[in-house]
């Protein structure tokens, strides 16, 4: 303030008009600064961007159709051929191109990962908000449901639901979301419990804001950083869960995924011999999951400055 008093009027008005903009820049630049100094965060962003790129342009990038059966020069099926210039990562038991399958599979992981995580965090955040804000019996009921969700063992739950509703990618995504929402519900609830005691909530109420408005216009933006952080971790878990489901053979039989590639290698007894069939899918899952974790880890430093050192 004191410095500003001595500035000429036109400089001052320029300062103030750019202030709102600089606020947004502040937030972004904090993130930028943190990522700039954090190698793992950088690694995460680069890897994730690469996978998203591959997923989007998969049909163009894949050299062959993932289901096409290739034959050798002598006319026999190219069963379990080792990597060559024709097939960069060799072929499967059915003579299909592993490299093409790998690229097309990226779509499922990225799609399921982000969408399931979004659904999970969307549900969890809303339940956390409502539960903490209204309290009383609403809180009791919702939190008991969360407790039950925590009690569900992941794999049996998935097996039962996939069996009942059928193994397609949308169902699998919903099942993953049905497990993952519980974490964000609990964490958001505890944060809202603290936020709702803050004086700004009382002010908003005194001004005549409705509960809905207080909840979504005032409390929610204050827990948003936390929600974004949990979203990042939920993405990593969703990718891993989708891969495990597919590896166990409960995946959607109509789409290619890394988990399914490993499952097929396993069922054909090739898991020890055809490293080119198994290894790339495993490495891809590992890279994608860890990239999202690293991004989440850096985001965590933004939401929780205490661990910035």
């Amino acid at each position: 303030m004191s410095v500003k008093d001595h500035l000429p009027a036109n400089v001052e008005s320029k300062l103030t008009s750019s202030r709102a903009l600089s606020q947004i820049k502040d937030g972004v630049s904090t993130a930028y600064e943190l990522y700039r100094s954090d190698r793992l965060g950088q690694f995460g962003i680069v890897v994730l961007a690469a996978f998203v790129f591959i997923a989007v342009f998969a049909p163009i990038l894949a050299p062959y159709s993932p289901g096409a059966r290739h034959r050798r020069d002598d006319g026999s099926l190219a069963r379990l051929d080792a990597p060559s210039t024709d097939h960069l990562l060799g072929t499967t038991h059915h003579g299909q191109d592993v490299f093409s399958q790998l690229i097309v599979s990226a779509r499922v992981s990225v799609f399921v990962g982000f969408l399931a995580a979004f659904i999970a965090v969307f549900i969890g955040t809303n339940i956390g908000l409502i539960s903490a804000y209204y309290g009383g019996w609403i809180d009791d009921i919702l939190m008991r449901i969360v407790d039950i969700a925590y009690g569900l063992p992941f794999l049996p739950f998935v097996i039962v639901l996939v069996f009942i509703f059928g193994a397609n990618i949308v169902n699998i995504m919903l099942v993953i979301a049905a497990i993952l929402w519980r974490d964000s519900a609990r964490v958001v609830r505890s944060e809202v419990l603290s936020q709702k005691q803050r004086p700004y909530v009382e002010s908003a109420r005194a001004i005549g804001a409705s509960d809905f408005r207080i909840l979504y216009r005032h409390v929610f933006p204050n827990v948003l950083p936390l929600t974004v952080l949990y979203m990042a971790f939920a993405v990593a878990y969703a990718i891993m869960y989708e891969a495990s489901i597919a590896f166990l053979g409960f995946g959607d039989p109509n789409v290619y995924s890394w988990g399914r590639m490993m499952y097929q290698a396993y069922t054909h007894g090739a898991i020890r011999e055809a490293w080119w069939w198994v290894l790339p899918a495993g490495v891809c899952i590992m890279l994608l999951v860890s990239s999202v974790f690293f991004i989440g880890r850096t985001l965590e430093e933004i939401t929780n400055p205490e661990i910035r050192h």
Partner: protein
Amino acid sequence: MLELTDVHVEYEMEDGGAVHAVNGVSISLEKNKILGLIGESGSGKSTLAKAVIRLLAKNGDVPEGSIEYKGTDLTELSDREFRTEIRWDEISMVPQNAMNGFDPVYTVGNQIVQAIRTHEDVSKGEARERARELFEQLGIDPGRIDDYPHQFSGGMAQRAMIALALALDPSLIIADEPTTALDVVIQDRILQTLRDLQQEIESSVVLITHDISVVSDICDEIAVMYGGRVVEHADVETIIKEPRHPYTLGLRNAFPDIEEDDQDLISIPGTPPDLVEPPEGCGFAPRCPFATDECWDVTPEPEEYGDGHIVECHRADEQELLTEEAKRKETWMDLETEPQQGVEEADD
């Protein structure tokens, strides 16, 4: 304009008991006046104010009494009616800690605009224009309207909070210790601004504070609260110069007169009364150097002495004696051994 009759406020506790934070308060406030509500922590002043604007915690309730505002009993209104018709349009509030009173994720101007547009059908531009005017009136650079709350200093945030409270020209403003966190110079300036603007829009103000020197400057009337009751209520002159209640006399001792020299500060020994099971008799009796047997047994009723000077004390008619005695430090010192004995007597 605001008329409280025998208002009780209770906070229910987990074990089924209740804290009787306000115990039968009757007080009225006229248009265009500033009422100072003073008392120590836990005397029920904030609770009383929150009961008026219906911001009590979830376990708080007004089981008895009426809060009449412009002829309507506010306790009868539904939450919805209260929200759309009374809040901010009619009664607004300046909270204790302005710095946290604003939502950190929106600009201060945006929050004032939101408040205006919640209650009035005006365009964003008009609301913004009014926010700028309010900033100017309160001596904040209107150019800072797009700042976030954390960019404001404590004094500025407090001014901005007052701007927000005045945004809809309310008839009643409840200011809950609006200057507690500020230094005395800023405190004085803000209170003067509040006073000026209050005169301009002809609203009434309830100013809650525990600082008697603050209220004496700008208030028209003072109500002294103790243990959930208003023990003395009169115009400022009377309270400062000729109080009748021993508690007010004691409070006065704790603030030295700048024109007299060599004064000892005398504090009132003891602690505020138990509000879970308020004992029979006068709530101040255990700390009162002038308590008689009657004080322990019978709760004093409000009595009027002179023009609008209402006191709840059995010995209020012995004003001269009490005033003289209360000035002596020994009067209050002797007491420190007595309360024990007093409590025993009360148990009998």
